[in-house]
């Protein structure tokens, strides 16, 4: 069974949205802790982060949101954020507080494997990563590897990146850990194509857009992905 990972920005409605995503078939929920200057994100998630910060979703509020979400769903919850938040909160303290609030690991978009190596987290590899960096990321990752399918920021694309097949091939020869592909995957058909290659997909930008329409719309959207990811 392939895995379906859904990204949601932390906010007041996130616990019920996460519940809807899980009802729709999400296996893992990533919870975005917003940062003011998110270099890896395209316009949709950047704007969602701006709104979340304007709503007061600072680190403390995000941890509370995580704990409230934990009470509603049983699937793994993975905070995804930027190094600036961990730097300010303390790297180990951030990881411990997230764990205490119900997180399973974490993802830091701008912390390549050689920075803060002692912090356990889900590592990312990209089409530009060489074999040595892939090996290092695989050795250090926490549970699964996040395959960045494109050279670019988060956001919808027209098709599945042609770079994905080659990346999966190179990573497979280095490790047995599960490989979940993200960045640029928004439609059920793209999710199906990506899971022909990888062990799962991460859907972020489109999920954030649909979540603005409410839990029912999100549930339906995730269900449409689920039918193609099996």
């Amino acid at each position: 069974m392939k895995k379906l990972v859904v990204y949601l920005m932390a906010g007041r409605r996130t616990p019920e949205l996460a519940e809807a995503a899980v009802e729709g078939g999400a296996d893992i929920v990533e919870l975005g802790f917003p940062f003011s200057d998110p270099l890896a994100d395209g316009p949709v998630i950047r704007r969602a982060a701006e709104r979340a910060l304007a709503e007061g979703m600072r680190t403390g509020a995000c941890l509370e949101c995580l704990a409230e979400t934990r009470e509603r769903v049983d699937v793994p919850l993975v905070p995804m954020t930027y190094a600036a938040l961990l730097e300010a909160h303390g790297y180990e303290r951030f990881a411990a507080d997230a764990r205490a609030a119900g997180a399973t690991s974490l993802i830091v978009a701008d912390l390549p494997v050689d920075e803060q190596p002692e912090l356990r987290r889900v590592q990312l590899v990209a089409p530009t990563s060489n074999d040595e960096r892939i090996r290092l990321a695989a050795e250090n990752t926490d549970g699964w590897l996040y395959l960045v399918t494109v050279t670019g920021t988060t956001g919808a694309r027209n098709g599945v990146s042609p770079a994905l097949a080659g990346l999966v091939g190179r990573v497979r020869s280095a490790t047995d850990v599960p490989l979940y592909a993200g960045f640029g995957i928004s439609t059920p058909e793209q999710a199906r194509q990506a899971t022909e290659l990888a062990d799962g997909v991460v859907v972020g930008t489109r999920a954030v857009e649909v979540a603005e329409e409410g839990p029912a719309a999100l549930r339906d959207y995730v269900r449409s992905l689920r039918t193609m990811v099996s």
Partner: protein
Amino acid sequence: MTAGLYGTYGGRYVPETLVPALDELESGWNEAREDPAFHAELHHLQTTFGGRPTPLTLAERFAPDKRLYLKRDDLLHTGAHKLNNTLGQALLAQRLGKRRIVAETGAGQHGVATATVCARFGFECVVYMGAEDMERQAPNVKRMHLLGAEVRSVDFGTKTLREATSEAIRDWITNVETTHYLIGSCVGPHPYPEIVRELQAVIGREAREQILAAEGRLPDLAVACVGGGSNAIGLFAGFVDDSEVRLLGVEAAEAASLGTGRPGVLHGARSSLLADEDGQIVDAHSVAAGLDYPGVGPEHAFLRDAGRAEYVTATDDEAREAFDRLAQTEGIIPALEPAHALAKVAELDAELVLLCLSGRGDKDL
């Protein structure tokens, strides 16, 4: 220990996608700096195209009770010290086989210097500039267009250098295989702070020789304005090993990343930043677009902590007053950025002072 650290500052806080490009840049840079042909070509461009060496000017009427020397990088081609860096990085891009250049700009001086070298080298050039800065530094937007660059307006957030830098980095992430990111200051992920410092160090090297020739001794104090900090780090490079020379950086009062900042991560490096207790970046403000930035080069944070350099602030009004006074007493119209450094001269407890006049003020009229 991670490469590119200045004490605990610096590093590479970037998406994985960029790390191989930074590795490639680092090895290209390490080869270039060991290659006499690179230095010969850079020197040739600096002298025959850029107008180096720039003179030292004694400013007797502006500072009658001191011996104040201005290092005249306002006389460099394109009107600011920025060309020192863009010439060097253009040569580097050529060695790396990159023919598309992206850059950010605040005051527009780095954008103009980038557009200039791209025209000279035949590179495609895209410059990101905050919408607010495009308005307040309109002459530089015209210059970039004339030089063949595409200027992309960044109209979200503070609409200034901070967002322009983020967008330039996002462009680089997207086009990393064909594109060189020509960063304009001694900020960003390793090896950029080192590359920019080394390319701007020509300011300090020349000034050191020139002041020794003029005065027979080193200055008591070397002073420069600090936004990201590249003209200051270039000036300081000439004197950092001379413990008798005090080093002073002048920040804009409401953009004092060193004066009132805290450790944090922005634009790929750990440095001293304007940030809140959760690490979220706080807006900076300055009448000088080139100083209107919440971060600063990691080496400055290190020099501050080590006690080797001191950093003070000047207000918008103090800078404007110094801007007018230099024009009226010396016949030199400075940019508003170095006007911040000029504003502090009268307060300095020093007899022989060297100040980096990093740019000219035509853009600020």
